[in-house]
């Protein structure tokens, strides 16, 4: 055991004493905080140049209303009320008579004007938009621009156009729209956290309003942090072991320790590296949130799970990466094994969004119970669904434990053979044979 710890200590110091580790430790949160800050700062950096929008209104019903809506918006939203500074672009609506003879040519001419920056965009409103269900002619509204799909103006246009069309339909139906001022007012739906019972006071706490910060803080940041720590503690073992093998260091070390002790020391070193980084990030994160007044968003209940999942993930994946590294003879072979080796870490990243959206779906549950994905996906689900059945994380943990034991056992057998096998390429068949037969 002492020898294993000595190897772990060397591995740990060899990593944490490097400038790269220290720099990475500092840079990761700086980059993260920096990008968040940049988003806030650059959010105000909008293009304030006026946007000229041409409108071809074949219905003859909408253009004037659109013109008025733009004027109203420009009057209240373009200039800052206090400073008088221009903070947004003004929308300038220019009505264009439809060319009934050559509509396609008109589209081309307007498109050219957009390309020449004379126009920002143009809208083509079909004749039948007032009653699209019964219209014999077209009933579409098309928005033409350089970046039409992501252009904010397209979203803005929908509301004044549809409000005006609704108003016209109500007038046709004989309803006096002037009788109700709030006929077209919009009421949003607020996201609220669940109410809960305080076990000490017996009081029922009302569900508080949950914010976007809360929605992403634990469910996204904790799995991302897990990913980062696996990348720091486990993934480097593949190249490290390959180097030790190719530089004959393994031969010297194996003169003093058994292969199992060697591998265990490497993996323990990786765990220690990850725990160091985790301590810095978790303590730093908690401190930062408390100091900035966001203490209520700290997911304390998740932290023990995070640490347990992380340690097991590093042991499980670290053993696998060390075994893969022992099968490689040079960096090229290590590179070729890196892609399949990275899949257990990459797949959870690919499915994060569907799991976050529907954390209680069968897909999410099954994915999070697969031992290789449990550390990231179960963690994410636990952060989102506070009322998750208790058996799920415990079953996930049990599955990880069993899989980790199997992985360490198999990896140990591969390592024992691979670390001294020179010139044999790391083919899947070889690796499986070594795992099965030693």
């Amino acid at each position, binding site marked *: 055991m*002492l*020898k294993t710890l*000595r*190897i772990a200590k*060397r591995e740990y110091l*060899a990593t944490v004493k*490097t400038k790269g580790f220290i720099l990475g430790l500092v840079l990761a949160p700086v980059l993260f905080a920096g990008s968040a800050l940049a988003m806030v700062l650059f959010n105000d950096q909008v293009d304030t140049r006026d946007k000229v929008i041409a409108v071809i209104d074949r219905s003859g019903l909408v253009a004037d209303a659109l013109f008025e809506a733009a004027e109203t918006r420009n009057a209240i939203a373009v200039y800052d009320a206090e400073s008088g500074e221009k903070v947004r672009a003004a929308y300038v609506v220019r009505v264009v008579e439809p060319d009934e003879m050559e509509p396609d040519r008109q589209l081309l001419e307007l498109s050219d004007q957009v390309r020449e920056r004379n126009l920002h965009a143009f809208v083509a409103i079909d004749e039948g938009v007032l009653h699209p269900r019964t219209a014999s002619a077209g009933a579409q509204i098309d928005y033409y621009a350089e970046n039409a799909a992501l252009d904010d103006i397209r979203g803005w246009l929908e509301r004044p156009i549809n409000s005006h069309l609704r108003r016209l339909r109500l007038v046709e139906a004989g309803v006096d729209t002037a009788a109700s001022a709030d006929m077209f007012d919009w009421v949003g739906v607020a996201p609220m956290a669940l109410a809960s019972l305080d076990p000490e006071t017996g009081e029922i706490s009302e569900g508080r309003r949950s914010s976007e910060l809360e929605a992403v803080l634990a469910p996204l940041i904790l799995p991302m942090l897990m990913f980062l720590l696996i990348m720091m503690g486990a993934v480097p073992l593949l190249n490290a072991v390959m180097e030790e093998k190719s*530089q*004959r*260091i*393994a*031969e*010297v*070390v*194996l*003169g*003093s*320790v*058994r292969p199992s002790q060697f591998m265990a020391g490497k993996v323990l070193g990786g765990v220690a590296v990850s725990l160091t980084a985790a301590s810095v990030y978790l303590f730093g994160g908690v401190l930062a949130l408390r100091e900035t007044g966001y203490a209520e968003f700290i997911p304390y209940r998740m932290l023990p799970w995070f640490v347990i999942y992380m340690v097991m993930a590093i042991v499980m994946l670290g053993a696998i990466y060390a075994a893969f590294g022992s099968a490689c003879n040079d960096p090229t072979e290590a590179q070729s094994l890196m892609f399949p080796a990275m899949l257990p870490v990459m797949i959870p990243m690919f499915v994060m969004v569907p799991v976050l959206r529907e954390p209680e779906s069968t897909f999410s549950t099954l994915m999070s119970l697969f031992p290789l994905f449990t550390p990231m996906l179960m963690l994410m689900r636990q952060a989102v669904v506070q009322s998750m059945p208790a058996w799920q994380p415990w079953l996930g943990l049990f599955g990880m434990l069993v899989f980790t034991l199997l992985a360490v056992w198999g990896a140990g057998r591969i390592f024992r053979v691979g670390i*001294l096998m020179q010139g044999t390429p790391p083919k899947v068949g070889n690796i499986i044979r070594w795992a099965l037969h030693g």
Partner: protein
Amino acid sequence: MAVDDLALDVPRGSVYGFIGPNGSGKTTTLRMIMNIYYPDAGSIRVFGEEVRGASTDRVGYMPEERGLYRRMKVRDILRFYGELKNGDGVKREVDDWLERFDLVDWAHKKVETLSKGMAQKVQFIATVVSRPELIILDEPFTGLDPVNADVLREAVLELQARGSTVIFSTHDMNVAERMCDFIFMIFKGRKVLDGTLASIQDKYGSDTIRIRTEHGLSVCEDVDGVEKVTDFGKTQELRVGRGHDPQEIVATIMARTRVDGFELTRPSLHEIFVRIAGPEARNEAGEVPDA
């Protein structure tokens, strides 16, 4: 098969030389002694005990290709390897050896900054810093300049004087002749020589004439009774055929040129090695000679 049916005993406290052509199984045998490779059959006993993991703490091993962490500092790596063997007083030993090998100024430098010779000395220190009872060195003198080779040779002999047993493999027959109490030769995975230099040479008898003449090799060729001439430039070694008189051979050469000196001697280790593993022996065994 790297090694086949090999039996050897290494007397405690001796310097034991391992010789043999490339690919004969020297390194594999040393690795098996170290328990790095496991033999398919048979047993290896070190200090009278079956080889197991724990016994390796009493054995220091220096592989042929150097195995040092390039980014570690010299002192740190020496302490790491020493402590990995559970060595006592490793810190003091490290300091002593660094001073002895004139590496004190390099103690805080990274291994990657060392020259090949320096790295070899560091590897040697890493092997002996835990004061092992058995020291196994695979090609320890390869690549060293004469000064450093002397330093290493003296260190090996001092370790022997302290009571350690030293096994080393080498291709330098002069080193083996001068340093080893016992010499073991392996060829094609089998033992072909094992004993003291004198006992090995005795088997071949005094069948060699070492001669120095005015005209060198040219006058030593085509002499009746000479089986083989080995040319060393200034001197030549003539192998005397069975049943022939060395006196007559010398007389024949003296008739051809002026002889500056000669001696009737036993074959050198180099000559014995070549007789066993050289092209001549392989031809006799029916092998295709090397190009």
